Structures are given as C-alpha cells and as structure tokens.
C-alpha cells in the first residue's frame, strides 16, 4: 500500500516538476528541451511517428513559409516513435496547455497511426497517459501488454525521476541541438552546419536500407497489419478528442499521408489500405481536415530518396518538406486552408 502511495506521489511530483517527458523514449524528439524553450508563437507543429520526424524538416518548412508569407515563421517537429492518434491528443494537449498553441498542426501519418491494434500501442499509452486515465484505459485494454501500458503512469514518475537524476536525457546531444536550433526533426537546412549534420546522420545509418529489407519488410505484414481497427476507444477516440480540442483552440489541422517505398507498400494488405483511406475520408468530412496524400505522387520507386523503406533521407526529406509547404502548410497559413 505504501509502495503504491509512494509511486503515485512520485508521478504527481515529477509531472509538477515538468519532467514527465523525460522518459525512456528520448528518440526521435527531445521534447524536454522543447519545453525549456521560450513560449513563442509557433506557426506549424508537426506530429507523427519516426517517419514524420525524418520526413519533415521544420527548418525546411520555415525557409519555404518565410518566402511565401514574407515574414519569419517558426515550425517545430514533435514526432515520437510509434505515435498514434492516442498520443496525438494526450501529448499535444499537455504540451500546449501552458504554451501558446500553434496556428497549424500537421500530422504526418501512415496506416499504423490510426490502428487500434498497433503493435506498439502499449508504449504510446503507457508513456502518454495521466494517473486519472488508468481505470478507464485498463477497462479498454484489448491485451495484456495494453493493460500493463494502462498501469504504467503509476510507475512512470519513479522511472522518469531515475532517468533524470542519472542525466540520461543529456546523452543524445544531437537531438538537443536539433531542437534548440532547428525545432527538432532529424534534418535541417540553411547552413553549413546543417549540411554536415545531415550527411553525418545519413552516413551513420547507411546500412539501414539492407537491414530493413532483411527484417522490418519481412515482418511488416504479420506484425503490423494482421489486424487493423480504426474505430477504437484509444486511438480513434484519442484522435476525435484531439480534433475537438483543436477546433476549440482554433488550430487548423492538416494531414500528410507520408510516402513509402514500393517494397514496404506491398506489405500493406488492400483491405488495410481501404480502411485507412475510409477513416481519413470520414475524419476529413467530419472535421474539415485538409489531407495531402503523398503516396499518389510517384514516391514509391525513388530509392535515392529513402533511408530505409519507410523513412526518407536528407534529400527525400528536403523535397517532401517543400511539397508539404506548397501544397498544405502555405495555403493553410495564408488563409486558404479551410
């Protein structure tokens, strides 16, 4: 009983101290450093999984938006590994509770983002829930791993405090640099320093394409798409809550369907693709979302643009960011988004 009390008290204290986002998931976004930056008006906040983090560059977006709008703009990329509609609500609303909300939020997504059976949903739930969510999410759990995820807020405080006091959050200096100087993401533009960091990043991950072909591509269908549910209480419900919150805050929301190489795309069954498109259309109709589907733009064969089969490299990211700026972000910010 005392242990439970202590664990809950620690989670509450850690949340109050502002270190709730010091979690095992420090990659791909240093959200802790984002929370330490001054509260300036943000034009575009990008959210999504690691794909969004690699595919969309905030500094690239700012370069394009500043030209188009003839003023300085500020964009950030807050993408997290295996993000779903669940954390879209929980993380973004908690981050922008005490800060000025962004004018536009762009969700960079793939089919897994809307899936209630996402193979890593337990992590998304466990790391982005509050203590008062525990009973409800426990009841909504479809599996043992999700039940453990639902219970995680109880021990999250002790975990975060231990990671923080061990200075774990300072170990990935590159992510901190990206967040402080370029609004996060994995690639930046506009300086020699960025060219060097982009090259260094892609060189460090040069073996990833082959590695992906040998592992992720082989297991993708069985691991990610053997079941696919878009209307569940955690992911679908979270997305609904997020879109209602955005409407209340007068934040425009745009969706980018991120590109896959053909080798990955082939692993996605047709019924999953149909369900994904159907859900997007329904969301678009209900909430007036503006959707930019990159998949239809011939990205499937361009090997030179990819780091692996479902993440872009620096060249691909620069091109996609420019496209997203012109087709989505710029029209939304200049008043033609709705």
């Amino acid at each position: 009983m005392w242990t439970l009390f202590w664990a809950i008290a620690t989670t509450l204290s850690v949340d109050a101290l502002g270190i709730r986002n010091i979690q095992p998931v420090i990659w791909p976004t240093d959200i802790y450093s984002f929370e330490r930056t001054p509260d300036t008006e943000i034009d575009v906040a990008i959210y999504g999984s690691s794909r969004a983090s690699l595919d969309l560059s905030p500094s690239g977006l700012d370069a394009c938006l500043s030209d188009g709008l003839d003023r300085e703009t500020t964009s950030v990329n807050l993408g997290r590994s295996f993000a779903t509609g669940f954390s879209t609500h929980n993380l973004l609303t908690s981050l922008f509770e005490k800060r000025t909300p962004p004018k536009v939020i762009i969700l960079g997504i793939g089919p897994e983002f809307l899936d209630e059976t996402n193979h890593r949903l337990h992590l998304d739930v466990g790391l982005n829930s509050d203590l008062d969510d525990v009973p409800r999410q426990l009841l909504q759990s479809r599996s043992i791993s999700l039940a453990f995820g639902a219970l995680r807020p109880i021990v999250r405080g002790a975990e975060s405090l231990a990671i923080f006091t061990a200075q774990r959050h300072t170990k990935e200096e590159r992510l901190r640099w990206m967040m402080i100087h370029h609004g996060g993401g994995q690639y930046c533009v506009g300086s020699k320093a960025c060219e060097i960091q982009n090259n260094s990043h892609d060189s460090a991950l040069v073996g990833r394409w082959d590695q992906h072909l040998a592992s992720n591509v082989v297991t993708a269908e069985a691991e990610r798409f053997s079941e696919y549910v878009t209307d569940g209480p955690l992911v679908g419900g979270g997305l609904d809550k997020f879109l209602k919150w955005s409407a209340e805050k007068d934040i425009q929301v745009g969706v980018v369907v991120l590109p896959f190489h053909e080798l990955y795309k082939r692993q996605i069954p047709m019924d999953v693709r149909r369900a994904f498109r159907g859900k997007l259309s329904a969301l678009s109709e209900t909430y007036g979302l503006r959707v930019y589907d990159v998949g239809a733009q011939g990205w499937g064969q361009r090997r030179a643009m990819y780091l692996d089969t479902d993440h872009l490299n620096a060249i691909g990211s620069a091109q996609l960011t420019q496209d997203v700026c012109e087709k989505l972000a710029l029209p939304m910010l200049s008043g033609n988004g709705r």
Partner: protein
Amino acid sequence: MSAPNAQHTEGRIRYWTKTLLGPLAVLCWLGALLGAKVQVAHDTERVEAERATTAALGVLPLAPAPIRPGGLDNRTLAGQMRDFHHVDASTSGPQSPHQPTDRKTR
C-alpha cells in the same frame, strides 16, 4: 563478547535500522525531487543561454555526432531506437561541437 551482549548489540542494530530506514528513504526521495527541481531550472537557463549566444554571434556550432552503437545503453530504450542505433561504428565519427558556421539560429 558474551552471548547476552551479542544479542543486545544485534537487537540495537535491528532497532535503529528499522527506525532510520523509513526516514532515510523519505529524505533520499525528497533530495532527488529537490535535485531534479534545481536541474530543471539549470537546463532552462542553459537552453536560453545557448540560443542567446548563438543569436548574438550569428553562427551555429556544429551538431554533435549521431549516436554510435555502444555510445548509449540501448537496453533501457525499450527498443525505441533499437534499429537506428545498430549501425556500423566506422561510418560515423565525433565532430567538434564548437566549430562555428555561417547561419544565424532560428
């Protein structure tokens, strides 16, 4: 030492252990929270100072190198970064974090 004395000493140790352990644990916990509070303030100042210095100089320092295998303990990352960390160490090297370049901070 005679048997009654040894028993007495053992009893005293047990008594003090029981009495002190709880308060010590609470003190450690409060100390960790207080330390965390100080560290958060320090980190906030550091971020602001870094942004201000870069803006004033008009140059960016080079980015620290990407994480290399073995550079960070992957086991506790819960598999999040697993695939991205498992790369060839020979392909990435450390860079100077202080070498200036030619662009203002954002």
